[in-house]
């Protein structure tokens, strides 16, 4: 049993005390003396030429301090894409400039083309209404196939709506084509992976403060990775030296990917603060969030699965159009490629995989990583087509998957899509899932549903994903323009308690609880004496932030390395105090002990000695006890899972209700099971939202029809079942010191195909020849599918 509060304990989340009592401090809660308010003026048309913008009336309105337009930023840089993708022909991707404020053209509804700074938000809003923009509306480019076929382009300077045409792995193309041509059975499925709006509970907000005394800037902002934001603003957008810019992300109310990226509003409040000589604060309203946060998913895919008559997989081949929206958000080119194409072998020994993916510009909000980021799209395609193949071949869907699973003794396993999976046991997960589900009794449950006039279906799914991003050497070869290590500083204070500065940012993940559990466990001390510090570039050595389920696997590993350095140094100090050789000193349970004796000193005594170095070997050891480590992982981590979902479908209305949901995940070693279960719950709920509810829709004019909670359907408690979660007994990650795999996204990756497979199973049981319905499976869509079948 884990000891109280250490690794493996379900310690309750210490940060929840402040969150649940209204004591959290979010960016919008911060008010700076003398602050002014910024309001953005956003395009109401999807595509248009800015003929002129008359700001004179606005500038003379009460309280107005300044008005900005795109003209004011033509001489500064653009917000870049963080990943270079080369097309199949070797040409680099097309990278149009993404300016702070739209200039020349507006490219999506919500594209900001002006900003007003005023004494109060109300005055800024009043003045914003007086800005007269002459925008010549052009036909909107919304549908991806049309975007590629037509002459109307989002960015005139690149002359095409195709950002890139990527092949993975291009050298496998001919062999895959050949294998599919000769296969005895090919199952083909065309599907849409629906666009999602992230909908973090806290809308984006930023406060820019220019300090003339030091010619320095402070940005307080809603960010998942303040260091990356600082780097982008410094190196690419405004050119503020990094040493003159501090970025602080205080409490952040959810991100799900949407707050990874740097946005123009952040640059604007900094530039505006310098111009007006006052702090400038902006808080998005919910409509702005819908229109301007980076959205997720939005793929149109054709997938083919070739197999032998006995169900042995021969090849997966996909062609996908991936929407990147109007501009390239920071990770928008990596998400559909290296976080998607590389997973297209799934959990299977399939020998041939080929992915062709075209990224397409449209007059819609930018699309980027959203919880799961590319892997949900891969899993959805694979697991839907496998389910369809099982039906066509007359095989049990579990058995078909098992037949093709990578077996436990085959790890490490290099998949046909090029990744080396380090560990896993997919059959064991499937065994566990089947035991929880009690498949044998399913027919009884189905009969009970039918007696109520409902159709019942069982959907199952297996997934593997790649997270804990990522090895810098590998991603550098693949086109990343940044390294993906992380960093931590462990500072032991003189009185023996600890401040641990970590590069990962916690915005719901529970780092403030889990990270101290690990350090305390290593040092044999009370976790309450360890606090983490995060989100402030002036206090933390460096960090690449929180996304891609990387905080524990990467930053946690850096923290372990730094703590190991602390122990090594402390052991030397203890050896001196104990008049022994460091090699003869053992460290356990917070005590340094000379081997074979009862001579010992506590960790606290050693800490005090480090800061009051009387009788201290200053010639050999520096005073103080503080260590920093940077950790760059050797590989991704590869969580996997087996999921099951049971639904009832009302054949009269098409309404789907989820009756049971089972999530069996392998996250390697688990640090805090309660928090991991919470991560699974949240991920599964978002996946259910995608599968059944969330309906992002642009009309042909580029208006977002689902731009408020009156139309955008977020999952609510009464949409959800009890979720049976199991993640014990995982296979440890083989290459990080914690043996941990990322747990933040598995739920969102594993659940959508599970739900859809269940609904199709239900409809088939009712004699409906429905083989596929595109998400979200709304009652209207299910009803229409039943009636067309």
């Amino acid at each position: 049993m884990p000891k109280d509060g250490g690794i493996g304990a379900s310690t309750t989340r210490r940060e929840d005390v402040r969150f649940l009592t209204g004591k959290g401090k979010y960016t919008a809660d911060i008010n700076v003396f003398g602050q002014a308010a910024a309001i953005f003026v956003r395009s109401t048309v999807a595509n248009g030429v800015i003929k002129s913008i008359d700001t004179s009336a606005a500038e003379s309105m009460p309280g107005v301090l300044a008005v900005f337009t795109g003209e004011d930023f033509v001489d500064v840089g653009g917000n870049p894409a963080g990943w270079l993708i080369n097309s199949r022909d070797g040409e680099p991707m097309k990278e149009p400039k993404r300016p702070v404020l739209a200039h020349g053209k507006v490219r999506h509804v919500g594209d900001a083309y002006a900003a007003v700074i005023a004494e109060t938000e109300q005055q800024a809003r009043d003045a914003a209404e007086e800005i007269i923009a002459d925008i010549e509306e052009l036909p909107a480019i919304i549908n991806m196939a049309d975007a590629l076929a037509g002459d109307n382009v989002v960015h005139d300077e690149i002359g095409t709506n195709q950002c890139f045409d990527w092949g993975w792995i291009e050298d496998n193309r001919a062999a895959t084509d050949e294998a599919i041509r000769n296969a005895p059975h090919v199952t083909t499925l065309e599907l849409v992976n629906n666009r999602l709006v992230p909908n973090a509970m806290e809308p984006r907000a930023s406060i820019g403060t220019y300090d003339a005394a030091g010619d320095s800037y402070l940005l307080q902002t809603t960010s998942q990775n303040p260091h990356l934001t600082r780097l982008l603003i410094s190196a690419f957008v405004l050119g503020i030296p990094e040493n003159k810019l501090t970025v602080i992300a205080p409490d952040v109310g959810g991100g799900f990917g949407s707050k990874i990226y740097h946005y123009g509003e952040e640059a604007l409040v900094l530039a505006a603060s310098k111009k007006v000589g006052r702090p400038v604060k902006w808080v998005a309203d919910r409509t702005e969030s819908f229109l301007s946060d980076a959205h997720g998913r939005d793929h149109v895919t054709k997938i083919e699965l070739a197999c032998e008559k006995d169900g042995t997989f021969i090849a997966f081949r996909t062609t996908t159009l991936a929407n990147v929206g109007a501009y390239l958000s920071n990770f928008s080119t990596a998400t559909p490629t290296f976080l998607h194409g590389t997973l297209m072998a799934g959990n299977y020994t399939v020998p041939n995989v080929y992915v062709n993916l075209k990224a397409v510009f449209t007059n819609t909000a930018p699309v980027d990583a959203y919880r799961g980021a590319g892997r949900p799209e891969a899993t959805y395609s694979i697991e839907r087509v496998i389910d369809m193949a099982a039906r066509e071949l007359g095989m049990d869907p579990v058995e078909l998957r098992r037949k093709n699973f990578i077996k436990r003794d085959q790890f490490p396993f290099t998949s046909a899509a090029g990744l080396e999976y380090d560990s896993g046991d997919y059959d064991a997960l499937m065994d566990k899932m089947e035991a929880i589900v009690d498949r044998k009794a399913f027919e009884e449950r189905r009969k009970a549903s039918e007696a109520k006039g409902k159709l019942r279906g069982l959907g199952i799914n297996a997934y593997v994903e790649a997270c804990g991003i990522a090895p810098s050497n590998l991603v550098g070869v693949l086109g990343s323009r940044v390294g993906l290590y992380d960093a931590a500083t462990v500072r032991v204070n003189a009185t023996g308690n600890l401040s641990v500065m970590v590069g990962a940012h916690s915005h719901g993940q529970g780092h403030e609880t889990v990270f101290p559990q690990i350090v305390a466990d290593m040092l044999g001390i009370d976790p309450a004496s360890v606090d983490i510090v995060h989100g402030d570039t002036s206090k933390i050595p460096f960090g690449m932030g929180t996304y891609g389920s990387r905080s524990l696997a990467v930053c946690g590993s850096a923290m372990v390395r730094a703590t190991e350095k602390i122990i090594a140094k402390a052991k030397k100090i203890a050896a001196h105090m104990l008049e022994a050789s460091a090699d003869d000193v053992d460290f356990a349970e917070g005590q340094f002990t000379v081997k074979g004796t009862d001579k010992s000193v506590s960790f606290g005594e050693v800490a005090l000695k480090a800061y009051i170095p009387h009788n201290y070997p200053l010639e050999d050891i520096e005073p103080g006890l503080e260590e920093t480590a940077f950790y760059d992982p050797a590989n991704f981590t590869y969580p996997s899972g087996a999921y099951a979902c049971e639904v009832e479908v009302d054949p009269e209305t098409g309404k789907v209700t989820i009756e049971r949901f089972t999530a069996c995940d392998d996250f390697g070693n688990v640090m805090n099971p309660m928090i991991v279960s919470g991560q699974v719950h949240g991920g599964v709920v978002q996946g259910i939202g995608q599968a059944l509810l969330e309906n992002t829709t642009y009309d042909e004019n580029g208006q977002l029809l689902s731009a408020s909670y009156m139309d955008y359907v977020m999952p609510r408690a009464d949409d959800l079942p009890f979720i049976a979660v199991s993640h014990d007994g995982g296979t440890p990650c083989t290459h990080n010191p914690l043996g941990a795999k990322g747990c933040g996204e598995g739920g969102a990756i594993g659940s959508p195909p599970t739900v859809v497979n269940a609904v199709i199973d239900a409809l088939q049981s009712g004699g409906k020849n429905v083989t596929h319905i595109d998400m979200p499976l709304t009652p209207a869509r299910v009803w229409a599918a039943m009636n067309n079948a």
Partner: protein
Amino acid sequence: MYAFDIERPSTIADAVKALKEEDAQALGGGQTLIPTLKQRLAMPSALVSLTGIGEMKGVCLADDGAVCIGGATNHATVAKEAAAHYPGLAGLAANIGDPAVRNRGTIGGSLANNDPSACYPAAALGSGATIITNAREIAADDYFQGMFETALEDGEVITEVRFPVPEKAHYQKFVQPASRFALVGVFVAKYADGVRVAVTGASENGVFRWSEAEAALSADFSAAALDGLTVPADEMIADLHGSPDYRAHLVKVMTGRAVTAAA
């Protein structure tokens, strides 16, 4: 929001007087109006709050047994206080929105706004209610005049709504999953002189009576009586959540379920 003045009259007479000011706007529970103001989609000079008018609040019984509800009565109060007298109506009120909406929103506000997806219009039309204003009494059949359109004149205030109590009644709502308004809602009420069926959420013309179903159910109050009837999809609402065909189909399904639940 734009700046506005707020008036809090305590009598109907004072409210009517305040509403005579140019661009003055009545404020019930504010469940539609306040979000509209926040979006800067309306610019009234003054809001005249009706929720402080004691004579417009509460539920009581008329001498003829009708349930009378003050125009400024919130949904939660109706759900509680009408339950013993008119459970079909109380059940509808109990499922409007969420607790916050039910404790702010008022019956008068809902009927004056006449949102095509709101629940109360179905109850009022389905019950043959009488809408009583500061100036006159309006039969429900004359009151609803299309999406967001009613017989109310400018400055006219709904002071009370009088519901004749049926032998049986039930409201079935198929919710629009985001707003939780009715994608289709059907109120069925069986009176001694016949059955009334009122449909909300479905039509571009707002709440309407499904007369074929009324005739069939008046002869035989069972879901089976609807067999063979169809609802035309013409002029049904098309939106993200359902096509006209789907809504027309749901009208029949929900009517059948309401009859079964009421019977």
